[in-house]
């Protein structure tokens, strides 16, 4: 029982980080019907930037989030304006897949040139510390990372739920034509939404770097998990992505501890397939676009 609870604790802490990464990806899909397969590369890019800020300036990764989020927000907006905005027509979604994949490969290439392919990790003073509560251990960097993810996700929720801009994002997600007819500037929402997606990747990357080792090719594994999460949660649903990320974290952790690490990843994909057989739209996805 103790190992089970310990595995659940680890799974929840891991799930929080994945929830942060996936929230931006699903938001961008909801707004633009663009699957940004560069989201994993954005995360790894931010992990490297945070690694460098820590290595050269001694800036703690949690503080680097304050720099990286606005910087990558701007980079995300520019990326949308330069690479994604011009894609139009009935094949725009497929084209965007190719464009963002090219972007991911470009980022990977630049990181490989700049940092080589050596595996790195942001080794802070608390990287290997943990607390003990009763008979359970809590890894410090994972707890900090989880707490930061929760704070940023609550900020994102508040933005979407309580602001005029957030309402216009939700409107575009649920019914883009209707949103246009009510005066919502869909192009502006798309650009800013892409920026928000990149900003969440920035925060997640800084946190990822203190929990996991990474190299420029780490984005391949990340994006496959993130895509699975947003499909299970329901494309476009931030709440669904959070739930699915928690499910991924806990399932993988419990299966790895109770059975075998070999089956950990497969167990989540089995759940994904079973859920999609019953609910093709995922947990909270719209069955179809309304207009």
């Amino acid at each position: 029982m103790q190992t089970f609870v310990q595995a659940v604790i680890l799974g929840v802490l891991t799930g929080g980080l994945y929830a942060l990464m996936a929230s931006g990806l699903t938001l961008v899909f909801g707004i633009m019907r663009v699957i940004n397969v560069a989201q994993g590369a954005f995360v790894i890019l931010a992990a490297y930037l945070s690694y460098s800020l820590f290595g050269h300036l001694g800036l703690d990764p949690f503080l680097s989030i304050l720099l990286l989020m606005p910087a990558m927000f701007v980079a995300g907006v520019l990326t949308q304006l330069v690479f994604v905005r011009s894609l139009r027509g009935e094949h725009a979604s497929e084209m965007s897949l190719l464009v963002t994949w090219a972007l991911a490969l470009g980022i990977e290439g630049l990181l490989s040139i700049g940092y080589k392919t050596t595996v790195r990790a942001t080794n802070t003073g608390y990287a290997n510390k943990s607390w003990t509560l009763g008979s359970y251990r809590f890894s410090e960097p994972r707890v900090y990372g989880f707490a930061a993810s929760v704070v940023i996700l609550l900020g994102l929720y508040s933005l979407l739920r309580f602001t005029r801009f957030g309402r216009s994002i939700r409107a575009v997600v649920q019914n883009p034509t209707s949103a246009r007819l009510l005066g919502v500037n869909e192009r502006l929402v798309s650009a800013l939404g892409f920026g928000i997606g990149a900003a969440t990747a920035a925060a997640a990357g800084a946190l990822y770097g203190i929990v996991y080792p990474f190299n420029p090719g780490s984005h391949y594994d990340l994006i496959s998990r993130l895509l699975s999460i947003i499909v299970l949660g329901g494309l476009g649903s931030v709440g669904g992505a959070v739930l699915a990320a928690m499910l991924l974290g806990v399932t993988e952790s419990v299966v790895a501890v109770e059975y075998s690490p070999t089956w950990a990843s497969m167990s989540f994909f089995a759940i994904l397939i079973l859920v999609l057989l019953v609910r093709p739209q995922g947990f909270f996805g719209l069955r179809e676009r309304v207009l």
Partner: protein
Amino acid sequence: MSFLRLHDVCAGYGQADILRGVSLELEAGTVTCVIGPNGAGKSTVLRVLSGLLKPRVGTVEFAGDPVGGLSPAVLLRKGIVHVPQERSLFPLMTIWDNLLMGGHSLRDGALARRRAGEIAERFPLIEERRHERAGTLSGGQQKLIEIARALMLDPRLILLDEPTMGLDAKARHAVFETVKSLNEGGRTILLVEQNARLGLSVSHVGAVMDMGVVRLVDEASKLLGDPRVAALYLGGNPDTRANGGAARAQG
């Protein structure tokens, strides 16, 4: 001077023109119903007027100003709102948030909430179910909320595209009572309706469209008894088409 004037408007999707020279004039404070067979271009006229589709050729004037090709956001500010044929509420938002979205163009949040409160007094359904998701409403209820939402900007011209499509008799009656009440409040309404008899019965003026042009414009009560209407509505009458220019009258 007409409140709204379209002159020889051509518009469509891709290379194909749906509208092939539409001319129509509306007087302020009237309800005008556009009828015609499927594919006549009725909804496309509304899409041009609300800015969803740019006219390729022709002029559109609203209150004396040229407005052809302007964006939906600009046209909203000028006082033109469009309630489309398809369900246009945001299904996962509350009814209250849907209403507030109607006032998205208002920079003043307090004004938007005050307007929403005034509209809620007029539509009891909003007050009763304001915290429920819009997707839980019936089709007729959704259409009423869509019309209510269109009032948030205090529009001068309301474009209603087949508001009774798919509704039962009771819901249709509620929608048309709302249309009449809005017009009695002084608003100009351009209504597209597949059910010609029903649409013309609440309108002052009727316009018959076929093959992308307006074939006939007359008082709605006269059109109701006009044998040419039935002929055009069923797919076109060669005699009327040949005399299309002569038959065209401005309401």
